[in-house]
């Protein structure tokens, strides 16, 4: 009896632990990660303002007190900078995870790259805690400066993957409606109660819009895939890719309008 009771208790506790850990992992979703990032970004901005003031004091007076203060503020600012970047990358990864329309393979590749970035800033942040001089802190900061272009490329490419995934998902939904409507039009044609040639032509137009939308999306993704580390204005390339994404989205809107037009016309004698 005692054995059964203890077995039951162990099972209950195991289940409770399992479910509570699952619940915890589910709790830290994209929204929370994003909030975390915004908080850390604000912390960085405050730390940066204090760093600028301490730097001015140090460069003006060159006292030991000013130097110690400047070192502390530099370390605080650099730590906050690493945290801001790390939490930003985490929120980006969680956004990618919840985005529909991205293949598992692509999700894995982009997540892996983001995880590497997150790991890099974690290690970098740990090294900052043992910095003892201003020159050391500047040297460690320079490492982050050299690494940052890689982070930017990974971030912009992840953003492109997220947007492409959303577009894929919408396109799949529209394609499903085209297939259903095609079957319905075939049925109407067989019944012979209505002329369907116009509907068939409009259906073809909608299908063309989906193809063009896909082409525009591919050109955006190609632009982002070719984003170079040395590219000075990565934001500009992202904006160019954005233009094509917008055009791709516009085609999806037009395809949907055409399908609704067919249904409207089919309802009129």
């Amino acid at each position: 009896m005692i054995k059964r009771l203890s077995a039951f208790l162990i099972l209950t506790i195991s289940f409770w632990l399992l479910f509570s850990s699952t619940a915890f992992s589910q709790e830290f979703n994209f929204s929370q990660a994003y909030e975390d990032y915004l908080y850390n970004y604000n912390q960085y901005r405050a730390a940066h303002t204090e760093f600028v003031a301490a730097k001015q004091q140090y460069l003006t007076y060159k006292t030991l007190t000013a130097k110690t203060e400047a070192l502390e503020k530099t370390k605080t600012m650099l730590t906050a900078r690493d945290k801001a970047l790390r939490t930003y990358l985490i929120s980006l990864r969680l956004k990618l995870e919840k985005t529909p329309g991205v293949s598992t393979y692509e999700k894995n590749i982009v997540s892996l790259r983001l995880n590497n970035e997150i790991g890099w800033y974690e290690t970098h942040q740990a090294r900052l805690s043992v910095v003892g001089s201003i020159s050391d802190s500047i040297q460690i900061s320079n490492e982050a400066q050299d690494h940052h272009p890689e982070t930017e490329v990974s971030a912009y490419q992840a953003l492109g993957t997220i947007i492409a995934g959303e577009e894929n998902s919408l396109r799949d939904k529209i394609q499903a409606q085209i297939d259903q409507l095609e079957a319905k039009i075939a049925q109407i044609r067989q019944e012979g109660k209505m002329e369907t040639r116009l509907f068939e032509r409009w259906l073809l137009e909608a299908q063309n819009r989906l193809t063009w939308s896909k082409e525009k999306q591919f050109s955006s993704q190609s632009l982002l895939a070719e984003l170079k580390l040395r590219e000075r204005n990565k934001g500009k390339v992202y904006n160019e890719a954005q233009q094509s994404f917008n055009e791709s989205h516009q085609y999806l809107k037009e395809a949907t309008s055409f399908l609704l037009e067919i249904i409207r016309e089919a309802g009129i004698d």
Partner: protein
Amino acid sequence: MIKKAIHRQQKIIIIVLVLVILSLTLAVFGVIYSGQLAKWGKIAPPSGEPTPSQEVEEVASPSAYATDSGLLKIKADLKEIQKELDETELYEAGLLPPVLDMEVELEE
């Protein structure tokens, strides 16, 4: 006798004058207001074409597929997709890389 004849002549002249003035006044009024009246639509210029007294609005009658459950379902799904398309935020402005000061210097 002569006096009477003169008096009659004067009367005729006055009547003729009054008639002339009246007809001139009417003619002037006619010229001035004819354009205005046409504008108001009281005097419609003859077009030679018959115009319908009232416009008849064409009412489309529903087809046999107006209440087709399959089509209505597709329509409802498409409306949902249309809403989703309008609400999709393509730029992801909130997720752009943060602006950070990466060039830190502390020495002159």
